[in-house]
């Protein structure tokens, strides 16, 4: 029993770390552009398939394939934001959110049109799982986690120290003041659309590395992504990380009491509980 709980905890931390990547993307876009960009689902899928093309078709190893996933999903994010979502923003956050759902349906079906509905797996070397104290841990899981952590570390450094990162935080914190200081909100918006959706793409691929991918890959994880962002506090990047770990661990621990098929319901319940007890999330709404 104890070993089982420990195993689930380990799995939960791994899942949570991977989940944190798209959750950061979602929450960062919310922080700067002030609307929930539901198109994150299709961008997870696009990233997963871009990584698949790099990895399987061109035989690139996982880490550089992730970079490709970031670029492709980011580019899609940038272009669709510029031409589809940005013109909607004057009509309000909710209208933009609805357009984002339409966008996610379109992009998901573009992927479906190109690749079909079949499940696809990445081409990865197979290793034997490590075992210690009765807990199994796959080298692939560890590598995925390391990749996720490095992506997040790079992002934190970018936000903390680079000039662009600082302007992004400034716009998130107080758009009016940022505008007075001469920060180009349009440019910051483009950067956050690119980086946020790029992260979604990386997240989609990371979550798919362990299993397989299909056009619904993004859609299946998106509820957990929302849950992570809301639990941590919508718009807070450290919150998204904490929220993702909480949701990841909760999803795994739920296996003790419910059927595995209910795993994705945990995200919804987490949202309900947090909004009832602590609507601003664990870390409160704060941009950085």
């Amino acid at each position, binding site marked *: 029993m104890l070993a089982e709980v420990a195993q689930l905890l380990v799995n939960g931390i791994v899942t949570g770390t991977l989940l944190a990547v798209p959750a950061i993307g979602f929450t960062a876009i919310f922080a700067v552009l002030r609307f929930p960009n539901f198109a994150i689902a299709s961008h997870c899928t696009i990233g997963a398939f871009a990584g698949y093309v790099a990895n399987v078709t061109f035989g690139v190893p996982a880490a550089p394939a992730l970079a490709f996933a970031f670029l492709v999903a980011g580019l899609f994010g940038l272009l669709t934001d510029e031409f589809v979502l940005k013109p909607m923003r004057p009509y309000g*956050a909710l209208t933009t959110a609805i357009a984002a759902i*339409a966008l996610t349906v*379109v992009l998901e079906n573009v992927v479906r*049109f190109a690749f079909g509905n079949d499940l696809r797996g990445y081409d990865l070397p197979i290793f034997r799982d490590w075992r210690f104290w009765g807990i199994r841990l796959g080298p692939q899981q560890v590598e995925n986690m390391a990749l996720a952590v490095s992506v997040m570390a790079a992002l934190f450094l970018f936000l903390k120290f680079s000039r662009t990162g600082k302007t992004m935080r400034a716009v998130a914190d107080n758009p009016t003041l940022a505008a007075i200081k001469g920060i180009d909100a349009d440019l910051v918006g483009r950067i956050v659309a690119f980086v946020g959706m790029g992260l979604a793409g990386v997240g989609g691929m990371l979550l798919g590395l362990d299993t397989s991918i299909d056009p619904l890959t993004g859609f299946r994880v998106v509820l957990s992504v929302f849950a992570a962002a809301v639990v941590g506090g919508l718009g807070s990047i450290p919150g998204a990380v904490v929220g993702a770990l909480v949701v990841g661990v909760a999803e795994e621990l739920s296996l003790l009491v419910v059927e595995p098929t209910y795993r994705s319901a945990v995200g919804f319940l987490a949202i309900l509980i947090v909004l009832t007890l602590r609507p601003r999330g664990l870390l409160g709404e704060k941009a950085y």
Partner: protein
Amino acid sequence: MENYLVAIVTFAGIYALLAMGLNVSWGMTGLVNLGMAGFFALGAYASAILTVRTGAWIPLGFGLAAIVAALAGAALMGITRKLRGDYLAIITLGFSEFVRLVAANEIWLTRGSDGISGIPGPWRGELSPAQFNVLFCVIVLVLVAVAYVVCERLRDSPYGRVLRAVREDDTVAAVAGKAVDRYKLQAFAIGAGIMGVAGAAYGHYTSYIAPDIFRPLITIYIFLALTAGGVGNNRGAVVGAFLVMAILEGTRFLWDVVPGLAAVQKAALREIVIGVLLIVVMRLRPEGLLPEPVPKVLDKETTR
């Protein structure tokens, strides 16, 4: 062919109910509902389970469907009432997935992914399939008419004015002494209730429901229907629903002309068309074909 057309009109009528339900919450009150598939499913399951299990009178099933969906709507609205609309968007989106999960897993109640078959329809046994088709089409059209009259009364009444005030600026409505939270809760619940009725109609018409029928895509269909028809306008909601149904069915044949497309690709193209249309309509004609009528009282003062 007649049968096919009658069936299309029936489904369009069901969409019209959904669109009017959405119009009460989103069109009149500005409360976004991205979980339409969930309320639709909830209504369908509530009515199907009641009538199949207990053999209850079908109108009771419709009633239960409305109540269950309305209560669920009130609960979701209650949880997010103090928060920005973004949270309602997220929670309703999650809700529709949650309903689908429960429907797929609580086999004792919903028969899981096998679905519930043999849902009774009014006089289904006594009538030929073609006659039943026509009868049910009439029933759905009557439901649409009733919903239309109720929603129009709602829109014209002082109550509807408060809803619009909440939509435009809920702080101002609150300053004017209106219990904004209560209005939001009621409007959202009424909208959800109408969607529940649509679900019940769907189940009793097709006699079979399963979790996969209630895909979130329906949310896009209905938003397109309402946006194309005219947000805030009940007539627009109905017209938009028929329009969307025509597009859905029309595109079904369109791709047959193009050679070399797999079935999956045709299905994908159909959904791309719907998604792109929603974006284009929102972008180019956000007020829809039939814009929301300006309230009569204001009309005299504002014209010229």
